[in-house]
């Protein structure tokens, strides 16, 4: 008797657990997401997941955060090795790298052209994730740029906020010299290892490292040349405080050291975190380059969400992105207020949060301004080799600061870039 019971009991347990597994597999659909920055992207994605889960209780979210370079390294490893089950369902990719991934790993990302209404988004964000008519991204945060400045410092140097509007770069440097002379504060923090400022200026001039067709565009690139000349002037004028690396650069303004910051809108949260500087900041459009067609708006960074084709919950992942990021205007108000994230869904800027006058910035309607500038950002093809050329540009910046010739720098960038993009 006893002998017969045991196998049967085991079988019952085995069956029970098997069906249990089957049930959990059918019920819980977990969407795994990789992104960087716990205070920004991660927090925003968790918020989005919470909203979606309210109407879709069968979907759960697993947001994994790594450093940005680490997300890129892991994504690239998974794609190159073809080990697709190592990949997440959704991944955040910086806009500069979008074409590289889409073109060199065809079939790895899920097109969303049929689901998402892309006419509702800022056109430049859609263009950068489109390959041969298919768009692959859920456009996310914009890197629209602005000139953040310390009203108290420039007033101490004899200027008014009106003087900070419609600047040229030469005028900006002039003001910087006066500010340094009268207040002892540098005009801006600048990391000589980072070509970010060059990219801001170049894009405001309507050009990039590559032409629309993806060919290298260095020696004949008027915007790049003007950008290098301007950067050289800034470095040589002494108005820039050298910063080493990202966090040190952030420290130049959070510590109250420098009088202005020119960067993407995503820095707003960081600026506002310095509570002791309330009411001291203003925001103006960035200075314009001295070339025909240059505008006072540009972009730095910004990223978008992509669904991996290998995902076994890709329809849920696409639906989730479309429902929240593609339609939910309230969500965009929430992340604007909470994290200072400016999305690229154009109708979101008609929401209440964008109309709020921000007391931190002395009651300026900065969000409305950024939304307006966003529409002016020149749309470009970032190409597939931005990282490579960026490294070439960055290595020419220190010689420029020491008085090197811009033409030599351009030639060196061209040579290094040519060899790197084989």
């Amino acid at each position, binding site marked *: 008797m006893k002998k017969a019971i045991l196998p049967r009991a085991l079988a019952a347990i085995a069956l029970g657990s098997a069906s249990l597994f089957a049930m959990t597999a059918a019920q819980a659909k977990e969407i795994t997401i990789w992104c960087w920055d716990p205070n920004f992207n991660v927090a925003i994605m968790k918020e989005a997941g919470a909203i979606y889960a309210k109407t879709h209780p069968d979907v759960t979210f697993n947001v994994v955060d790594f450093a940005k370079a680490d997300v890129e390294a892991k994504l690239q490893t998974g794609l190159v090795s073809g080990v697709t089950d190592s990949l997440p369902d959704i991944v955040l990719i910086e806009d500069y790298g979008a074409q590289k991934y889409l073109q060199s790993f065809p079939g790895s990302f899920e097109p969303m052209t049929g689901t998402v209404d892309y006419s509702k988004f800022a056109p430049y964000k859609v263009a950068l994730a489109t390959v041969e008519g298919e768009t692959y991204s859920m456009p996310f945060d914009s890197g629209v740029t602005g000139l953040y400045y310390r009203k108290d410092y420039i007033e101490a140097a004899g200027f008014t906020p009106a003087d900070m509007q419609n600047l040229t770069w030469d005028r900006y440097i002039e003001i910087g010299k006066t500010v340094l002379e009268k207040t002892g504060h540098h005009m801006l923090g600048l990391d000589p*290892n980072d070509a970010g400022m060059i990219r801001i200026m170049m894009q405001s001039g309507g050009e990039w490292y590559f032409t629309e067709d993806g060919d290298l565009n260095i020696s004949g690139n008027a915007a790049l040349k003007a950008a290098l000349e301007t950067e050289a002037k800034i470095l040589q004028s002494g108005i820039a405080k050298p910063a080493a690396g990202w966090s040190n650069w952030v420290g130049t303004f959070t510590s109250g050291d420098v009088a202005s910051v020119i960067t993407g809108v995503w820095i707003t949260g960081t600026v506002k975190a310095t509570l002791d500087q309330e009411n001291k900041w203003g925001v103006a459009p960035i200075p314009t380059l001295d070339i025909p067609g240059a505008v006072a708006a540009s972009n730095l960074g910004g990223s978008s969400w992509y669904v991996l084709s290998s995902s076994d919950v890709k329809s849920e992942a696409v639906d989730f992105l479309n429902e929240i990021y593609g339609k939910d205007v309230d969500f965009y108000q929430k992340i604007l207020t909470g994290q200072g994230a400016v999305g690229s869904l154009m109708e979101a800027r008609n929401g209440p949060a964008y109309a709020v006058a921000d007391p931190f910035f002395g009651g300026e309607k900065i969000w409305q301004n950024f939304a307006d500038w966003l529409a002016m950002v020149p749309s470009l093809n970032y190409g597939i080799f931005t990282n490579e050329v960026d490294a070439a540009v960055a290595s020419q910046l220190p010689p420029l600061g020491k008085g090197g010739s811009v033409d030599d720098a351009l030639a060196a960038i061209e040579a290094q870039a040519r060899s790197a993009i084989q």
Partner: protein
Amino acid sequence: MRTRHSMDKASPRLNRYFDVNGWLFVAPAVLLIAVFMVYPILYSLWMSFQTGRGMKMHFDLTANILRLFSDPMLGLALYNTMIFFIVQVPVMLILALLLATMLDDKRVRFRGLIRTAIFLPCVSSLVAYSVLFKSMFVQDGLVNTTLLDLGLISSPIPWMTDPFWSRVLIIIAITWRWTGYNMIFYLAALQNIDKSIHEAARIDGVPAYGRFFFLTVPMLKPVILFTTVTSTIGTLQLFDEVRNIMTSDAGGAAGPSNSALTLSVYIYNLTFKFMPNFGYAATVSYVIVIAVALLSLLQFYALRERT
């Protein structure tokens, strides 16, 4: 040399017994290394003859090798790595040897405490120490303010924004972390040296520096060779420090003007940061292999036993 085969020549049967045991003892390690090292090495050798972008790769015997010779970034990486090697390895090893000799002296008080203190850096977590160094060496960080206060410098040193000083910083960082580690090897070797020879030399009137160069150094030769070879391998593969101290997340350069771009960082960039081209990255990694092999050979030759 002692005879280590006292029983091995006993009989053919016993010989076989020892041979079987020999293979059994080394088998687990050999298997593991074959699977997790040798196979990947061969795989990457095969990959080094592939060229293309991302998933679109094709075989080409010479493309990557030819590219090596027209790659200015590779030249720079090779140059930087050699600078680190030529300056850092000797400085660190001489420092370690000096410290070890001083700590070998029984009359020095608190030897244990000092030895522990100097060894501690190599126990520290790599990422943690990189964060610490970064925060100490920024433009108006602790190091510059201290040096300014002491009147040793008149303006802050641009540790991380000037190509020359950023190389100095990397050298300081590696030296800080690994000097104690090498010192322990020397210290251990020194304590095995027969002190009576030194004593005899001292009585004969040989000065301290003479004893150091003509007695200590020759007797330490095997350890010096060992530490030189391991430090050479470590320096030529230098990666972690540069990535964590010098590379900013936003920019593409490793230090100002890529002044700290090493071969390993370049391989990393080729594999993970730039357009994924693992084939070329694999080819570049064989440049390191050849460099290490040549240098090790040179060192073996220079420090060979002359008997």
